[in-house]
């Protein structure tokens, strides 16, 4: 019985502390407001990383696969269409859309850990490149589209 009470106390403390800390990430009400700080990270990508070409550029399945990966791993923070959410900035912004594919790949690989973006190197390299291809295809989409862009071969 004592162990149960102790376990319950620990769980409540655990939830309280982690939620307090996690949510003090100062999430704004509707829109992520640290976009500028996160976009600045793209500029920090090393030259060597920027110069990398996307090996999935000519893969006919890459866009559809990238869309699936985006839905599975990215929409929770960046919104269904990459328009941005409470926890992640818009990916439709020029800072992202004009960035070199290699720079976006570098951000996916390294994350922006201090700003809440985890590292995604657990996705194998080809999948990260598939994601890059899809993210770049989001350019020019209105900020609140009803449907995701149709994949183009």
């Amino acid at each position, binding site marked *: 019985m004592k162990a149960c009470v102790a376990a319950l106390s620990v769980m409540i403390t655990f939830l309280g502390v982690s939620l307090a800390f996690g949510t003090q990430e100062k999430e704004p009400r509707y829109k992520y407001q640290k976009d500028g700080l996160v976009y600045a990270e793209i500029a920090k990508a090393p030259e060597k990383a920027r110069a990398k070409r996307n090996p999935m550029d000519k893969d006919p*399945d890459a866009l559809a696969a990238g869309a699936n990966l985006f839905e599975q791993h990215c929409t929770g923070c960046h919104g269904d269409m990459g328009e941005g959410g409470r*926890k992640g900035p818009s990916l439709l912004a020029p800072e992202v859309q004009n960035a070199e594919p290699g720079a976006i790949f570098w951000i996916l*690989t390294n994350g922006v850990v201090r700003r809440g973006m985890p*590292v995604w190197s657990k996705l194998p390299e080809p*999948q990260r490149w598939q994601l890059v291809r899809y993210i770049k295809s989001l350019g020019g989409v209105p900020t609140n589209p009803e449907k995701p862009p149709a994949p183009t071969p």
Partner: protein
Amino acid sequence: MSDFFRFTILGIFLLFSTSVLLPSSVQAQESPYIVAYDHYLEEPGNLEIEYFSTFGSQRQANNFHSFWMEFEYGATAWWTTEVYLDGQTTFNESTLFTGFRWENRFRPLRHEHFINPILYVEYENISGADKIMKEVEGHDVEADYAVPNSELSKERNHELEFKLILSSTVKGWNFTENTVASKNLTGGVPWEFGYALGASHPLALKASAKRCNLCRENFIAGVEMYGGLGDRHSFGLHDTSQYLAPVIAWNLPSDWTLRLSAGFGLNDNSHRFLLRWGISREITGFGSMVSRIFGGHK
């Protein structure tokens, strides 16, 4: 109905009911390891609920089935915190709740490197009857588990455990090395040491154009090896148990992950066979959801 079935059914019921009630939109990309850790932390604000089970064969005593629930929360992108609730059934003896653990993992470096360190700190409040074998350390040997539950459960351990996790991902391969140091605060027990090594690789590196359950990229296979390294007074492999275990994870597009591991004892001090499996589900945005309940976000 035996206590064993009650505990198992309760655990799985909790997992399913919480998962069904809470929405999720992410597919987990979980490693197959059950003992070893890699350097990937929980995504911030997400909660992963896991149920794990270990069946252990035991020479000259009763076999056992141990089980635990894990609640893993991504507090930030560099801090993951986790609570465990442990239990076990020793066949022909009894079923016990054996205690809880509170684990924290920290990522000290901002960027990805060839070797990525993670710092791990855990507090354990468990009885001597705990058999989940989440880590093997010191001079833990099979004979320790032959003592009846009625005796083992009288012992209560408060333990601090530290790990240095060094993990690399290269061309789809993950290699990880965990060094364990633990100190039982309840007695004059010296520092104990252990290790876990792991290697894994997805069955395919590219994602398919269509979502599918049985696509090769949803499976990650690997192997882990773990065991004790003695204590401060007698460091080394003598009187320790050592295991080698092929592992596989199946990450389903429906957000569930299944893991399976068959562990084989490598010396006479080890259990001959440990069959482990686990099921987990990740709930995205759990932190925001709870925060909204308390008026944090509208």
